[in-house]
C-alpha cells in the first residue's frame, strides 16, 4: 500500500491537457450564459410585439435578427476564445 502511494507521489503526471480542457469548458460555458438570457429576451419581446401588432411583423423581424446577431456575438467570442486557449 505504502509503496503504491510512494510510486504515485514520485511520478507526477502531466495535468496541463486536463486543465486546458477544464479552462475551455469554463470559458465557453461562462460566455454562453449572458447571450442565452439576452436572446431569450429579444425573441420573447419580438414575439409579443408581433402578436400585438401583426402588421408591423416585417419590421420587427428584421430588428429581431439584428438584436440576435449583436447578442450572439458575445457567445461566439467565447467559442473562438475556447479554441485559442492552449495548454
Amino acid at each position, binding site marked *: 500500500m505504502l509503496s503504491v502511494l510512494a510510486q504515485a507521489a514520485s511520478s507526477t503526471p502531466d495535468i496541463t491537457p486536463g486543465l486546458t480542457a477544464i479552462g475551455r469548458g469554463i470559458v465557453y460555458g461562462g460566455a454562453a450564459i449572458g447571450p442565452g438570457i439576452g436572446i431569450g429576451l429579444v425573441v420573447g419581446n419580438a414575439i409579443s410585439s408581433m402578436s400585438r401588432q401583426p402588421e408591423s411583423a*416585417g*419590421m420587427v423581424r*428584421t430588428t429581431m*435578427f*439584428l438584436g*440576435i*446577431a*449583436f447578442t*450572439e*456575438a458575445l457567445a*461566439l*467570442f467565447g*467559442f*473562438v476564445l475556447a*479554441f485559442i486557449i492552449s495548454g
Partner: protein
Amino acid sequence: MNLAIDFPPISHAVEWPIIFGGDVLGVNKVVLLMWLSVIVVFAFFFVASRKQELIPAGVQNVAESTVDFIRNGIILQTMGEEGLFYTPFLLMMFSFIFVCNIWEVIPVAQMPVNARIALPMFMALLVYVMYHFVGIKGQGLGGYLKSSLVPPGVPKAILPLLVFIELITMLITKPLSLCVRLFANMFAGHLLLITFSIISATLFAIQWQIVILPFSAFLLIALTGFEVLVAFLQAFIFTILTAVYIGQSMHPEH
C-alpha cells in the same frame, strides 16, 4: 466490444492538404470551393438574366425573388430609398456567402468555406473600409467623426467615456464581430455535424441496427436541415449588418 470513439483533433477537421501551388499561395479544397462558389454565383445570375421574360419562370424566377428579397427585405428596411445604389453589392455579398456556406451540407464537398477565418476576415475588412469611406465621403471627415462618435443629448460629464466606447465600437468591435460571427457559426456547425457523423459511424460499425439507438442518426439528419437554415441566416445577417453599417455612415443618427 469497444465503445471508444475517436474524435479527430480540430486541426484534422478543418485543415486540408495543399493540392497544388506553393507554401504561401497553396490551393487546397477550401480555395477550390471558394472559386467554385464564384463560378456558381456568376453562372446563376448569367443564366437567369440571359433570356428575360415578362413572366419569370425557372431560374429567372429564383433570381428575381433573391433580388426582391435583398431590395425589400434588407435595403428598404435598413437604409431607405438612397440605399438602392448598393443593391448589386449586397446581392453579390449575400449570394456568395450563402453558396460558400451551403457547401457544408452538400455531399463530397462538406466543408463550409467560411469555417476558415480568411474569407470572413477579408469580407469584414471590405465592409470596414467601405463604411468608413462612405461616411467620410458623405459627411466629410469632421462630420463623420462627430456623428459617429458623439451621441446627441448626453450630459457633458460622461461624454468622454461614451466617446471612448463609441471609438472602440467603430474601430474594433464592429468588424471583429462581423468576421467572428460568420466564422464561428459555420465552424461550430461543421464540428457539430462531424461529431454526430462520428457517433453514428461508430455505432454503425459495431452493429448496424443500433445506429438508431441514441437517436444520433436522426439528430444528424435534423442537424443537417438546421445547418441549411444557419447557412441562410448567417448570409442574411452578414448582409443586413453591412447594410446597417453603411446606412449609419450615410445619414447620421439624430
